[in-house]
């Protein structure tokens, strides 16, 4: 009998713990205020986290109710989350989408259901459906970071390598075009290797190790994002080589720390926080007046970050 009671009480404790978890995760919201739904690709990546938090903060200040969800770059999950936004009678949707082509139908459905969509960070391949598409100028950003790369190497020139992002990603293509529009004009610089590391730090580490074996005279590495640049930094360090210049792209906190310590030459900061706030402001404007007062496609310039101005930036935002 005692044994059975022990079992039953274990079960009851389990149920109570479960209910406690449930209630802890829930908070009763004020349903009288209009809801803005913010969808970002992930909540465990500093870039998207900063973007989502900035948008949420601005929307709360403007008197909206806010919900932030992540679609994990899964177009089907994004579709379900947009359905949930429609069902909750959201007033507006701030969306960092899960694919330029795969997101069109979902954005169209939300618009049809009367929810204006404001796209941030990534555009979709169609005009006139979203109310705004605000993205960072990847081409300009790539050009300024490549110019800094060329300047820092100087007239001595030499051989350099490139780490590319995922080849199917439009931003990877735009960035490499931007790099080459500057670097190809430098007669003293010669690219000896270009490898895709799929935006990943560990892949960049392995690819860089291989490239260092094949090309002993490397003077620099241009990376398509900060994560890959930091992978390259680690590989160069573990090989015990000095005087290899590395540049990144994005302006992540880790990259800023690496610039401050001198491991990374430069990066370019994508103004994610600024873009998120702009989108919420335009959504607010649209809900109040029926128009955003801006063109649908808006491109925001990226800032060059070097050791000279690294303290001016924090968490994808210019703070000074």
């Amino acid at each position, binding site marked *: 009998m005692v044994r059975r009671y022990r079992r039953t009480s274990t079960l009851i404790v389990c149920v109570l*713990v479960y209910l406690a978890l449930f209630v802890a995760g829930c908070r009763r*919201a004020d349903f009288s205020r209009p809801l803005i739904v913010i969808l970002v690709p992930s909540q465990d990546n500093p870039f998207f986290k900063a973007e989502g938090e900035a948008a949420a903060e601005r929307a709360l200040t403007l008197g909206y109710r806010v*919900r932030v969800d992540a679609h994990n770059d*899964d177009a089907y999950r994004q579709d379900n989350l947009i359905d949930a936004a429609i*069902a909750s009678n959201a007033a507006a949707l701030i969306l960092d989408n899960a694919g330029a082509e795969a997101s*069109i139908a979902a954005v169209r459905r939300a618009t049809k259901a009367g929810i204006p969509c404001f796209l941030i960070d990534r555009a979709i*391949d169609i005009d006139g459906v979203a109310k705004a598409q605000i993205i960072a100028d990847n081409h300009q950003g790539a050009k300024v970071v490549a110019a800094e790369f060329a300047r820092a190497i100087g007239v001595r020139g030499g051989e350099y390598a490139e780490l590319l992002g995922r080849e199917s990603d439009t931003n990877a293509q735009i960035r490499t075009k931007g790099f080459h529009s500057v670097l190809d004009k430098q007669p003293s610089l010669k690219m000896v290797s270009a490898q895709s590391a799929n935006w990943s730090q560990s892949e960049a580490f392995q690819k860089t190790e291989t490239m260092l074996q094949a090309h002993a005279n490397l003077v620099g590495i241009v990376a398509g994002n900060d994560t890959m640049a930091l992978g390259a930094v680690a590989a160069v360090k573990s090989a015990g080589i000095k005087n290899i210049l590395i540049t990144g792209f994005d302006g992540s906190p880790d990259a800023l720390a690496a610039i401050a310590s001198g491991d990374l030459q430069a990066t370019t900061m994508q103004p994610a926080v600024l873009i998120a706030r702009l989108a919420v402001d335009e959504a607010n404007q649209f809900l109040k007046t029926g128009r955003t007062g801006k063109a649908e496609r808006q491109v925001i310039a990226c800032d060059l970050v070097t050791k000279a101005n690294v303290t001016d930036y924090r968490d994808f935002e210019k703070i000074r």
Partner: protein
Amino acid sequence: MSAAISTPAQAGKFAASSARAVLWLLRARAILVLVLLLVFFTSMSPTFLTTNNISILAKHVAISAILAIGMSFVVLAGGIDLSVGSVAGLGGMIAGYVLTQGIIIGGSIYYPPVVVAVLLTFAICLVVGFLNGWLISKAGVAPFIATLGTLYIARGAALLISNGKTFPNLAGLSSRGNTGFDLLGQSFLLGLPVSVWIMFLLFAAAAILAAKTPFGRHVYAVGGNERAARLAGIRVPRVKLMTYLFSAFCAALVGLIIASQLEAAHPATGESFELNAIAAVVLGGTSLMGGRGSVVGSLIGAFVIGVLADGLVMLGVSEFWQIVIKGVVIVMAVAVDQLQSRLQSKFLPYLSQASGEVGN
């Protein structure tokens, strides 16, 4: 049991009725949890119990329910199918390829109508299902390993078809005569999405198949005791093969519905869907050892998971908590399942005694 009860006969009656009540509660636990969840979310969010949201909810549930219905037969026969998510992804990509790239016949590109694209998708997905069934029943590979292998094969094939890219604009062009694919996932019938009707039709067919046909009995027999089933003359390999074919068919259906909903086919679609389907089957009270469970349980299990997922999103619960809560629910479900089978054997003497009294 209690001091107030004096005679042994009364005590027996009391024990029998309380044992019955406990067992009934345990058996109906999935539907009880579902009702509790519905009440909870309705009280927390004013937009939860609206026709609009219920229709959307049913549409989301349909995806995991269709996979879970297919998975039920596999699990009832003592197997497991990890490949369903990848097969769904592959199915969408095949339909996407045929609709947007066409088929090359004799050097010229031919755009077949939607029906052909759909049939082709089923055909290729059934080949994966056949491969699963053949590997498990003929080559003797363990179901977990065989379907883990086909999980990778189907996912790789889906990525290869487009080189990792998305096939957009699946609505088709009237100049090519291949419009209408978007109807599958986006049109409504009597106020409910077509995919929900497909789920109910499939469920009705599967429930009859499991409970009323020889095939259904054979599935239970194979899962309950494979050796005994073989000795009783059941063609065990054939039964197993059929379950994997049916599971692949359901997966292909899901792939088509999702591609139609998104009007786009992405090769990563369906990642970890197999886990949702298995969770729904287990929540519905089907034993992973095979031989015990029901199709209706899987349907209710899929509803529990779907209501939980959508409700938590609508309440604005953080994504990380959502994952934790889902895990807790699955673990609890299996724990209660164990409790039920233990109590059932313990209460058996009381129950038979009680029924004996009724006979008198």
